[in-house]
């Protein structure tokens, strides 16, 4: 197999584009797509302060590496959920990477903010992924707001995006789907920092390849609480389709992007002005936000 651009021996295939590239041209194509996602969707520019949510996994580390390399004004945020044997492994990796690359790192923890840890939450019989998702999102938003970031970049890749689109479609969660996209959320309020996804067009396979070629460190240990049976089924089905019919993931994303303005416009009418949670003051559609509800249920 030869590189589509230079004819040298190929290092990676992109079956969805019916092309293969050598390492150098792969990096060029990868970086150009990343930059295009940012500019075409107007996610942010060089004047903005970009908070980068990192976990130490391949996607967020590649995103942080690239944004820093491209000269964006970045500061990293990592959430320590308090998962023994997992977060304590990736935290040192992120700290080292940020120190070496002169990136300011902000560490926020469940322990400090919520006076509990995910390990303790699980011991009380709660569903780890539901609690972690809500509390992590809450804390990332607070951290981004604290550092006066204009946007919060998160490392969702093409696989995450297409899985999310299909899961919401299959569950008839169109309101939720209408809030998705390159910039997440319909709420315009100074308490809410918009989340943006510069990697949403990058297949996770290519994020791994890019990290390996560029020597971007990442941790790939499995979260001990990771039980996402439904997502796993959707992922398997999508991967099977992609192998047989390359391009279905990109097609799914592009179709969604065309539908997104219609969905957003439709559900804007149903969206009232957000309230302030009477417990914590954060934004919510009801009286008490989901995070406070969840924390209360643990008492």
């Amino acid at each position: 197999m030869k590189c589509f651009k230079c004819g040298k021996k190929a290092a990676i295939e992109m079956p969805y584009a019916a092309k293969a590239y050598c390492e150098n041209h792969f990096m060029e194509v990868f970086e150009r797509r990343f930059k295009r996602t940012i500019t075409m969707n107007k996610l942010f520019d060089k004047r903005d302060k970009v908070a980068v949510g990192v976990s130490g996994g391949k996607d967020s580390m590649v995103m942080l590496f690239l944004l820093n390399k491209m000269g964006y004004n970045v500061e990293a945020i990592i959430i320590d959920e308090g998962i023994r044997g997992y977060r304590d492994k990736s935290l040192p990796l992120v700290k080292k990477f940020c120190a070496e690359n002169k990136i300011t790192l902000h560490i926020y923890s469940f322990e400090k903010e919520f006076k509990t840890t995910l390990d303790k939450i699980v011991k009380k019989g709660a569903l780890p992924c539901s609690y972690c998702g809500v509390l992590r999102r809450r804390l990332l938003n607070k951290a981004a707001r604290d550092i006066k970031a204009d946007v919060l970049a998160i490392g969702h890749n093409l696989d995450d995006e297409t899985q999310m689109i299909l899961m919401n479609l299959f569950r008839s969660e169109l309101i939720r789907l209408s809030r998705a996209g390159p910039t997440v959320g319909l709420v315009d309020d100074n308490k809410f920092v918009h989340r943006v996804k510069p990697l949403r067009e990058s297949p996770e396979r290519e994020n791994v390849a890019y990290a390996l070629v560029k020597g971007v460190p990442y941790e790939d240990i499995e979260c001990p609480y990771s039980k996402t049976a439904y997502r796993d089924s959707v992922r398997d089905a999508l991967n099977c389709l992609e192998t047989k019919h390359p391009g279905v993931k990109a097609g799914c994303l592009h179709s969604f992007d065309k539908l997104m303005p219609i969905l957003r416009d439709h559900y804007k009418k149903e969206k009232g002005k957000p309230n302030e949670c009477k417990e914590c003051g954060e934004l919510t559609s009801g009286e008490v936000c989901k995070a406070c509800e969840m924390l209360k249920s643990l008492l």
Partner: protein
Amino acid sequence: MILIESRDFNKKVKLKGKTLEELLTENSINSDNFIAMRNGKLITRDEKIRDGDSIKLFPVISGG
């Protein structure tokens, strides 16, 4: 003999296949789930594998 290393396994296999794809298939490894490197360089599935090669496999799906 070829050494195949990954996060979850580490095994020596005999050279039966001619390409990476064939080698992985013969060892019940789904090539879609991994990025393969030989001597620190990415290789494609059609790459011919030689006896004595050491192949490192990196999982594509993260476990977070």
